[in-house]
């Protein structure tokens, strides 16, 4: 029995060695491990003070084991990480790393534990999404925090849901996939890839600086608060000005 197993194993190994595209795989592996090494070096310098020497997390930052390359690409790609100073929430800002460095960091974090990978371009292409269905999904899953027009809103203790104007599709996709900071995640089992694409198509149709706003001034898209303030200040102000004009003493002929 043991001998048979040994022979079978040897045969399988030999066959694999004979048929596997050995050089390519090795080259891939070598490039991958090089990226991981480079990423680890970058991580030690830029991230380890909060997230721990090997991504285990600490009092200042959460563990990064299992968050996956997609989370790294989102957090570092939007400039949220590295954080400028401790606070309720890391705001988006100009990114501090090049794309190559972000890929290396992502490779290193990806090597710590399995997590969502950076999506392919086809996953988040707004052209393949159904904007109308996306609007429905947005109102069910996203509007409670990000506002029904995607303008964002306040949460507790200084945290907030950011506005979604002009966010690159890949970052919207990764945010839904990974649930950055206090945002819940929407894994594919809850919100399949096609539905994520629908939401991206919707945001792309209505929430970019190029998107038309048929009604004109959206006044921040906050609804009755800003609209009421505008009406009270400017509408009633104009009415008061007109009333003053109607009631003013008309110009008299100068005595001469």
């Amino acid at each position, binding site marked *: 029995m043991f001998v048979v197993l040994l022979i079978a194993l040897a045969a399988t190994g030999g066959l694999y060695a004979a048929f596997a595209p050995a050089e390519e795989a090795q080259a891939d592996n070598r490039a991958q491990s090089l990226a991981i090494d480079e990423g680890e070096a970058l991580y030690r310098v830029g991230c380890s003070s909060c997230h721990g020497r090997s991504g285990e997390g600490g009092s200042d930052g*959460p563990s990064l084991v299992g968050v996956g390359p997609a989370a790294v690409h989102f957090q570092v790609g939007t400039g949220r990480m590295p954080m400028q100073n401790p606070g309720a929430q890391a705001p988006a800002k100009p990114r501090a790393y090049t794309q190559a460095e972000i890929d290396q960091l992502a490779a290193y974090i990806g090597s710590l534990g399995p997590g969502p990978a950076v999506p392919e371009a086809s996953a988040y292409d707004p052209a393949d999404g159904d904007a109308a269905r996306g609007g429905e*999904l947005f109102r*069910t*899953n996203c509007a*409670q*925090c990000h506002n029904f027009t995607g303008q964002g*809103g306040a*949460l*507790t203790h200084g*945290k907030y*849901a950011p506005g979604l104007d002009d966010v690159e599709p890949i970052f919207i996709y990764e945010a839904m996939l990974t*649930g950055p*900071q*206090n*945002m*819940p*995640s*929407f*894994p594919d*089992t*809850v*919100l*399949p890839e096609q*539905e994520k694409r629908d939401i991206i198509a919707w945001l792309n149709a209505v929430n970019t600086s*190029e*998107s*038309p*706003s*048929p*009604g*004109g*001034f959206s006044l921040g898209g906050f609804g009755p608060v800003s609209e009421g303030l505008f009406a009270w200040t400017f509408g009633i102000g104009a009415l008061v000005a007109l009333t003053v*004009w*109607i009631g003013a003493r*008309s*110009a*008299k*002929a100068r005595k001469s």
Partner: protein
Amino acid sequence: MSDDRDHPTSSQETETRKDVSDDHLPGERRSGELAVLDDPFADPGLPPHEHRRQDIDERAAKRSERTVALLFTVSMLATIGFIVAYVAIPIDRIVYIWPIGHISGLNFALGTTLGTALFCIGAGAIHWARTLMSDEERSEERHAVAAAPEVKAQVLEEFRKGAEESGIGRRKLVRNTMLGAMALVPLSGVVLLRDLGPLPEDKLRKTAWREGSVIVNENTGEPLRPEDITVGSLTQAMPEELDHHDHDFHAEIAKAAVMLVRLEPEDIKDPRSAEWGHEGILCFSKICTHIGCPATLYEQQTHHALCPCHQSTFDLSDGARVLFGPAGHPLPQLRITVNDDGYLTALGDFEEPPGPSFWERG
């Protein structure tokens, strides 16, 4: 304004300093003796009428006339522009207008032209009234409000005679039945209040959740397995029995809508809540117990769920206890388990009525 009316005592000239305007100074000063007016509360009357330029200068009047006519003409042109815009501009044309941005060309044209048309009519009318119509002040005495005594007496006499002729004082049966009829009529209105709606009965306490109801994902309409719900995710869900096309769908989903979250089991503080969940998956009603908004602003790190309407905050790691805000009760939790096919199902309806409190809620 330094005429005699303002300074009735300045009858005698005294030494006055020529470099100071005497507008607001008493006309003279005597040795501590006050001048007494005949009637200090006398009606000062109207100030003398001052003419406007248009009243005395025909060219100015002509200019005003032309301005008013111009405003009315602009209004006419704007109305024509409105009609042209309505016909000519397609409804989906988007134009860029600084500083408003990309807006509907039709909306912008219609609003601008109609606004101009209405404004110019108003502005023309006001300019006309202010510059050309007569602005002579007039005063008329008010008539006494009370009627003359003889008219009063006549009316009272006729009223008394009418009451006597109707016999309302004498024929008590007629009077009493009339009062009774008039007192009963409003009851019909009270009875009609019943039509304000069917009684709620126990509809507020029961939802569409039954024992064995499969929990389906509201996004996909598919049933959910425990492994679909990862820690930190948020899932909007509803019972499988509800169909979007049912006529009572909205009435039922308004009570049955739930959200599913998954916490690390050691993060769940309330043992009953943990027991009612499944391996850390908790299923809460998402209808806020204050006035029924969907309280699904879920912060996955703090496990707080907020209501967007009045900021009620529920701690989902502690049985949805109210941490802040006007909500009076925790969000009801649905007891869940996994059925033989591996799908998440309800173990029954909510233990307490979901949604806003009501009188008989208990």
